């Protein structure tokens, strides 16, 4: 059960621990919680995956539907990413219109998917200027125990990797085809606790954090998105160091997202 009020005593404790290279749940500073993914969790989606990082659980469903291409990109399909931080998932989330926090999660994930050219959008064109596939990536948070961006990205990548173009349903072709995924972006989030910078912050660590930095990388060794969040600061040297750490974690996260299971 999560508390509604965060106790200051936990913040102090987390900072004390971090100064000694320790964390409340016994993890190392540069250690993720257990990561796992279940692709194909939702049959009504054209692609889906349930991702867990520790107690954090995020479900992503992909829907592919024919629509009209944007006028300035008549030969390309359309990609939209949306994240729902539903009140079921945390006492901190309330019903109502999307909170800026939900919008941040969806936009950071959207940027990584887009910049990594995860999907070749020209392959989603059906009739130039008239009909193209719209790829809806809906990220549904079910249990919030910290680090929604990494978990959401993992669920999205897992869902995209296992998605099918429903050609038959919309009379576009005789057979359904797999959605082609060209690149595999993953996000890696860090939180500053005093002088220490921990990876994969828990919800308590996020509350105590003096700055958060997310770095998205892909398998082609590119940095494809970044986001500094929360109140706090990082030096350029911090950032360079974190990029190296993000690449190291990225390979393992990518392997989990592509294969399914845990890692």
């Amino acid at each position, binding site marked *: 059960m999560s508390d509604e009020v965060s106790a200051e005593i936990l913040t102090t404790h987390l900072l004390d621990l971090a100064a000694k290279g320790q964390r409340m749940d016994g993890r190392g500073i540069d250690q993720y919680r257990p990561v796992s993914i279940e692709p194909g969790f*939702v049959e*009504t989606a054209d692609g889906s995956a349930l991702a867990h990082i520790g107690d954090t659980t995020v479900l992503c469903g992909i829907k592919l539907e024919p629509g009209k291409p944007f006028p300035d990109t008549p030969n390309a399909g359309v990609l939209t990413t949306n994240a729902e931080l539903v009140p079921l998932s945390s006492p901190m989330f309330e019903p109502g219109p999307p909170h800026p926090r939900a919008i941040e999660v969806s936009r950071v994930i959207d940027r990584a998917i887009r910049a990594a050219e995860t999907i070749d959008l020209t392959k989603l064109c059906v009739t130039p200027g008239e009909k193209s596939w719209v790829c809806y990536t809906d990220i549904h948070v079910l249990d919030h125990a910290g680090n929604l961006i990494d978990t959401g990205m993992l669920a999205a990548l897992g869902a995209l990797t296992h998605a099918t173009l429903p050609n038959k349903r919309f009379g576009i072709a005789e057979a359904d085809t797999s959605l082609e995924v060209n690149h595999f972006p993953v996000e890696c989030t860090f939180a500053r606790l005093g002088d220490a910078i921990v990876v994969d912050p828990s919800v308590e660590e996020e509350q105590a954090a003096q700055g958060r930095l997310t770095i998205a990388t892909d398998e082609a060794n590119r940095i494809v998105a970044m986001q500094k969040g929360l109140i706090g600061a990082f030096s350029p040297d911090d950032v360079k160091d974190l990029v190296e750490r993000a690449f190291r974690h990225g390979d393992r996260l990518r392997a989990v997202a592509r294969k399914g299971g845990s890692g």
Partner: protein
Amino acid sequence: MGSVGAKEVPVLLSPEGLRIDGRHLEELRSIRIVAGALHGADGSAFVEWGANKVMAAVYGPREVHPRHLQQNNKAIVQCRYNMAAFSVDERKRPGLDRRSQEISKVISEAFESVIFAEEFPRTSIDIYIEVLQANAGTRCAGVVAASVALADAGIPMVDLLPAVAVGKVGGAIALDLKKEEDNYGEADLPMALVPQSGRLVLLQMEGHMTREELAKALDLGVTGCRAIYEKMKQALRDRYASGGGAA
């Protein structure tokens, strides 16, 4: 519920009296209930029922925000039934549409009928239902999940609240409709039963039935609810009889 693609009406009832998925008229789809599926809620449950997947969480009793909603003599019971965008064939726009708002209201009132809300004045008991995969009967699956979640959250109530829909397919009264039966059948009658009193606290109907058919459907629904009731109790026993629970 609308559907995409094939518009041809399928044969819903075989000459042998079997349904589209081979079930008998009085047979439920398979049901799996997990009590305590989430770490952060006061109570939670996950229900897989046929091809439905529904998660429910309960928060509270807790302070009411905004405060003007407070009731001086009892807790307010608020349910939010929501469908994930990818839970249906055609992507659903995120957020509560009119259907979801109506369902949220009747489910809130069903639970208000069984919760001892006067034990917690000026508080709120919040019930959240998320439909992750829909295949007809999601409001009933939602009620079942939410009811197990309420018990998991230690909320005092008259009884658990099993629910099921009865319908009319191919001219016959059938228990627990699946999607094709719901889309092409002649009637749909979702209900939730208080087993202790034998009364219904949720009841809706869409379609048409004769008096005799309705009487039969109500009886069949009550029988179905009692079978689901046993599964709900077993899910809670599995979580608590081993002394675990309340993570």
